[in-house]
């Protein structure tokens, strides 16, 4: 593995470790509902501070089940990942194409003026 690839792998491993550590060490065990969303916890805190507060507007559309919701979240992540992958794929392909075109040009150039001069003069 190149040094570059090693550093990138290390970065990904660190991110994975940061996500896994709270799970492995059971850092959510002290909670009634371990690893609930912070957004939901904030809603609970609001109702603690102000028990009379009633949300005055409700979402126009609500995913009918947890499954549908997770499907839509996966869709969101997949759309984003797809665009990013397209970007880097396109860049890589272009670079390879440029390199090849350069090589071809150089080879042709060699043949062209290679008639008069000796070969190994790249």
């Amino acid at each position, binding site marked *: 593995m190149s040094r570059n690839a090693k550093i990138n792998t290390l970065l990904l491993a660190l991110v994975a470790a940061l996500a896994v550590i709270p799970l492995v060490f059971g850092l959510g065990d002290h*909670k009634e509902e371990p690893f609930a969303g912070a*957004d939901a916890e904030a809603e609970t805190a609001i109702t603690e501070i102000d028990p009379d507060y009633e949300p005055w507007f*409700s979402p126009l559309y609500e995913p009918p089940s947890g499954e549908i919701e997770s499907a839509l979240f996966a869709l969101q992540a997949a*759309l984003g990942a797809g665009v990013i992958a397209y970007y880097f794929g396109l860049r890589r392909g272009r670079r390879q194409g440029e390199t090849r075109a350069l090589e071809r040009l150089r080879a042709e150039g060699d043949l062209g003026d290679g008639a008069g001069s000796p070969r190994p003069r790249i």
Partner: protein
Amino acid sequence: MHIAEGFLPPVHAVAWGVASAPFVVHGARSLIREVREHPESTLLLGASGAFTFVLSALKLPSVTGSCSHPTGTGLGAILFRPPVMAVLGTITLLFQALLLAHGGLTTLGANVFSMAVVGPWAGYGVYRLLRRYGVPLMVAVFFGAFAADLSTYCVTSVQLALAFPDPAGGFLGALGKFGSIFAVTQIPLAVSEGLLTVLVMRMLVQSSRGELTRLGVLVTSVAGRKTADPAEAVTR
């Protein structure tokens, strides 16, 4: 950082909407100008928006025993400056408000203010400041993304504390409560976001050197020495 639909009193909801609107309008203008003047950057703009899309869909466990998600706004703010991210962040928040019942239309203004306005500006500010003092590119990128992420959640805590001051502790009491829910949970996630943003920036340095130079992220010749470090690490 998503304040749920209907969970801000109408006055607050409107006030945050009014506060965010000029940033989004200004951002839309600079986005259009960017695309018109540099059509070749459209793809990288799309990728920056996509980064926000992915990261804000990733709910990760944190040391506090609850889950939250990064925002992904630091990358685009560093590449294209913060106004552009006001638009891309708003698009992401709208998607989540309309399809996922995550956040909401009445709280859109407040959520845009934290994630698409303050986050990008804080991240960009930290990044520029560190770069000015000669901090290596990737270190500055890390702390920029970290600041964009964490500041977003701090703003959310302030917004909720303003709307729901604690009966006993007042604004500060409530800020402590919401801060411990949002900001503390967010610290390790902000580290993750910093690392992921560095990863993407390294890949960009490798694949899009010309683009990064045009955007001023990479500097050629004059300050060649300063950019030599991260560039060298990547090209080898």
